[in-house]
């Protein structure tokens, strides 16, 4: 399989959020700023890559009927690891992502890729797939975080470019849904054109 193609499919064509619509909870909740979106995206990428590697390594060992619990254990372990590491070295981002770090466990993307890809493919392909999917997730999250931050708090990556409060609604819950809705519509349109 062409590894480059394997990598890029996660970025756009099969973007986990905008096209596959997996992992919507963190997408909506943590994208109040671009930094948060990026932090969450990278944390998820780490978990995705590591769990993909492990699962593809162990795929011959894990029989079908214990598949799901085994995956959950592996995923939960890596989530806890990234949780601890962020708490130690990136306390500010950890604080603002809060409960959504442990919730990567139930992010359907991670389990979804394990099921759909890692348990059928070799280690290299699975790593590349995890990386592509993870970065696609991070990309979508960062874009959404940027839009909400620009409109809502008149700043980008924490840098304020204008005085005032911005359109507060975009930082609040309704803004998250609406921005997400329009982004997805744009993505659908772009993909159909191709």
């Amino acid at each position, binding site marked *: 399989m062409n590894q480059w193609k394997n990598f890029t499919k996660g970025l756009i064509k099969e973007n986990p959020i905008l096209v596959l619509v997996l992992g919507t909870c963190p997408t909506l909740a943590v994208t109040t700023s671009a930094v948060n979106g990026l932090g969450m995206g990278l944390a998820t990428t780490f978990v995705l890559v590591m769990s993909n590697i492990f699962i593809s390594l*162990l795929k011959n060992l894990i029989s079908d009927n214990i598949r799901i619990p085994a995956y959950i*254990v592996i995923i939960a*372990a890596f989530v806890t690891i990234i949780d*601890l590491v962020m708490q*130690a070295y990136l306390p500010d981002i950890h*604080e603002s992502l809060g*409960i959504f770090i442990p919730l990567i466990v139930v992010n359907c993307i991670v389990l979804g890729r394990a099921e759909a890809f890692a348990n059928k493919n070799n280690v290299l392909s699975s790593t590349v797939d995890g990386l592509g999917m993870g970065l696609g997730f991070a990309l979508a999250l960062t874009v959404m975080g940027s839009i909400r931050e620009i409109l809502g708090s008149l700043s980008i990556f924490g840098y304020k470019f204008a005085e005032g409060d911005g359109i507060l609604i975009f*930082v*609040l819950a309704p803004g998250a849904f609406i921005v997400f809705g329009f982004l997805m519509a744009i993505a659908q349109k772009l993909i159909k054109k191709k």
Partner: protein
Amino acid sequence: MIIVLGLITAIMGVLLGYVYNVTKDPIAAVQKEKINKAIQEVVPGFDSLSESYRVAALNDPDSLTFFDCYKNGEWMGTAVETFDKNGFSGLIKIMVGFNTNGDIIKTATLKHSETPGLGEKMDNKKSDFSAQFSGKNPDTFKLTVKKDGGEVDAITAATISSRAYCRSLDRAYQAFKAQKGGVQ
């Protein structure tokens, strides 16, 4: 089958334990640093600090943490780590400094998950909401929002967060008064 599952759990357990041990100290250091910074912010100018001690809170099973601050060997104020569990998104943690008269010197937010742009303004880096408490004595300054008949200007559109903030300060003051035997 069960062996495989057990094996995976064991490997993951060992890995987790290892990471936990490596990150334990940095995490503790980060948290201590944060607390120390907050104490310096709310009780400026002290040169030594007592060991922290816990004081029972009124109306709640959890206790508050006190840090007595000294300058040239004399007690000059106390930083109290206080909390409220009914913020808009649950728990908030506040550090508040009292001088020897029981006046609030300054307050700082340690932890909150309030709405960005609204309740978030309780953080003194985001708005001057918390500045209104500085120099006030809770015996004469009623620690409830104006809507509830008090004297605190609530954050616009974030009454729940503002109330939680006031409650946490009041909780700290009640404990402080009880601990220090009235005010000197």
